[in-house]
């Protein structure tokens, strides 16, 4: 198996540069009102990075509150069923709150506390990041306001109730298309209006610098653990890493520690919705073009006039018309491959995983799994795939029942 390697790039792990650029992607495309905040945040984050106490706090809560490290599990029956490469799941769905999102919200709330911020805002699509934000806000006794598209509120009712139980205020966003991108717009509007006391916990590896880098670093706990775990289990690294991508935070967290291991093939899986050629999808790299939105330059779904288009996916967590800028860069440099999986393929993978492994996956990693199902049979028995099982599927059972025509 060959892996793309660009001789001009000394390290794929060196980015971003000091202005937040990964090649031409990233940057700080925000209103002037927010610039002082973004610069403060960067400075506070740099100080935290140098402070061993910050890392100690993060490790303590990661272990005792989130339950890290999450296991690396050999999916025996799925491996036998597909009849090719050995398949391992990184079990980030076993984290407290049921997804990888809390790795990042933990890091950011510790930073918010250091900065003396007294109010937290967040945006959410599927509700996983909203729940993870509400959770750490309860833990540290900070008020939390979560912006969520009205459309998403409807299709993710269990997570909305969870956030409310955790004490968060969930604000329905009806502007634009009432989905994740509009929730992000509304959170930015809140931040512009409440610059003094408010910390904005962005849920993915997007937004103005330093967010893409910071969120990636908090999520990199996933990849660092995988490195140790796969070495312990197999005595070597995996041949292929696979993760699903909406904004791309679970994928960056898994991929980043391996970017310079050029023998490791890296595959991101976007949501193709009804199919990339139908126009109803969320595959920004496969079906989009470079543009500027939400503080960074990256691949976007947009019209010829530069208007942002609606994304579509059965998975609310992948339903975003952009992607983290570092993924755009990894795509253009060829270091990572990006493929797409339709709603139907994800639904098939979802059901197979339930029956073969006794794991109900979230619809997001079901996309990654659908690609693993394509890939594994083409690989040898001695080869290894690690897939990030980044969320559990309890939140999706109603959506899946609906898609399968089952009345609950």
């Amino acid at each position: 198996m060959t892996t793309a390697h660009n001789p001009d790039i000394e390290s794929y792990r060196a980015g971003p540069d000091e202005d937040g650029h990964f090649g031409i992607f990233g940057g700080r495309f925000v209103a002037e009102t927010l610039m002082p905040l973004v610069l403060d945040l960067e400075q506070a984050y740099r100080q935290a990075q140098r402070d061993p106490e910050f890392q100690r706090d993060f490790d303590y809560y990661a272990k005792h509150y989130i339950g890290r490290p999450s296991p690396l599990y050999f999916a025996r029956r799925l491996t036998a069923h597909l009849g090719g490469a050995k398949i391992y799941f990184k079990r980030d769905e076993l984290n407290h709150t049921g997804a990888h999102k809390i790795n990042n919200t933990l890091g950011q709330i510790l930073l918010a506390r250091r900065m003396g911020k007294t109010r937290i805002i967040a945006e959410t699509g599927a509700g996983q990041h909203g729940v993870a934000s509400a959770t750490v806000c309860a833990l540290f006794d900070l008020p939390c306001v979560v912006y969520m598209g009205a459309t998403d509120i409807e299709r993710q009712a269990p997570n909305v109730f969870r956030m409310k139980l955790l004490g968060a205020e969930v604000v329905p966003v009806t502007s634009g298309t009432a989905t994740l991108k509009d929730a992000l717009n509304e959170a930015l509007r809140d931040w512009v209006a409440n610059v003094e006391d408010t910390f904005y916990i962005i849920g993915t590896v997007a937004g103005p610098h330093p967010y893409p880098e910071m969120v990636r670093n908090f999520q990199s706990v996933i990849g660092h653990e995988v490195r140790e775990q796969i070495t312990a289990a197999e005595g070597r690294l995996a041949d292929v890493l696979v993760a699903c991508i909406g904004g791309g935070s679970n994928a960056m967290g898994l991929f980043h520690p391996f970017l310079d291991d050029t023998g490791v093939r890296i595959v991101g899986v976007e949501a193709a919705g009804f199919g990339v050629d139908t126009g109803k999808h969320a595959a920004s790299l496969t079906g989009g073009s470079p543009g500027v939105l939400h503080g960074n330059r990256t691949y976007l779904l947009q019209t010829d006039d530069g208007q942002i288009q609606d994304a579509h996916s059965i998975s609310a967590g992948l339903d975003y018309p952009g992607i983290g800028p570092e993924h755009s860069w990894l795509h253009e440099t060829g270091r990572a491959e990006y493929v797409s999986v339709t709603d139907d393929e994800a639904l098939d993978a979802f059901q197979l995983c339930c029956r073969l492994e006794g794991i109900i996956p979230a619809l997001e990693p079901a996309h990654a799994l659908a690609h693993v199902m394509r890939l594994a049979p083409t690989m040898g028995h001695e080869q290894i795939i690690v897939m990030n099982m980044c969320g559990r599927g309890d939140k999706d059972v109603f959506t899946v029942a609906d898609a399968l025509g089952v009345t609950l």
Partner: protein
Amino acid sequence: MSDSVQPLSPHDDYTDTQRIANRFAALKTERRAGLVTFVTAGDPDSERSLSIIRGLPAAGADLIEIGMPFSDPMADGPAIQAASLRALSAGMTLVKTLKLVRHFRAGDRTTPIVLMGYYNPIYRYGVPDFIDDACSAGVDGLIIVDLPPEEDQELCHPALTAGLHWIRLATPTSDDKRLNRIMTNSSGFVYYVAVSGVTGTRSASEQDVAAAVGRLRRHTNLPVAVGFGIKNAEQAKAIARVADAAVVGSALVDIIAATDGDAEAAHKLVRELAQGLREEPRDL
């Protein structure tokens, strides 16, 4: 969508780098503050939008800001978000916005036109093409909300080189160090955003604005226009006492929404605001 305005020769070149400076010089001679009016291009459609914009100078607008509609206007409040969506639903594009400016310019060679909006539609249009087309259509300056000084190489540098003015926003969060950075590569005038927040939601006190404008003047000799939250003649007058121009946006956009683009209703509001400013002579 049918565009009933007649196509103009695309070869007419309305480039003029002095319109903004000339207008502020004239205001100084008249010893009054200027009125800057904001409307979204193509709201509620290109035809009605053009007739609103054409009548603004006669109603008393000294400078015109034209919003370039964008699907995701992060820094705008409900009024301007809705205006953007109305325009986009009616088929507005950046190409048509530039055409609208060209039509306006054919009948008015002196009133400065500043385009305001977000970077993505311009990036998608292509920066060099956009700059060429904007200059020749008679655009005088640009206010691009999501291009802070950190991203000057994107559009600010090429725009300035081509003779377009680069108008920056200064805000209550801008400290002295930040103001130095903001004033570098600022031209035409400086737009002081009087409240931290999205457009059209809150108003600022005259006292706070006076203090802030005083601080700005220690960093620049450019004229200072103040906006965000001005809804009536009294507020416009208050701004006029301390700044070189008052910007009215959301209030005007609200009238356009409420009257479905009735030009006379929009011009009536502008006349009232302009009248207020003219009653407030400045001692400069």
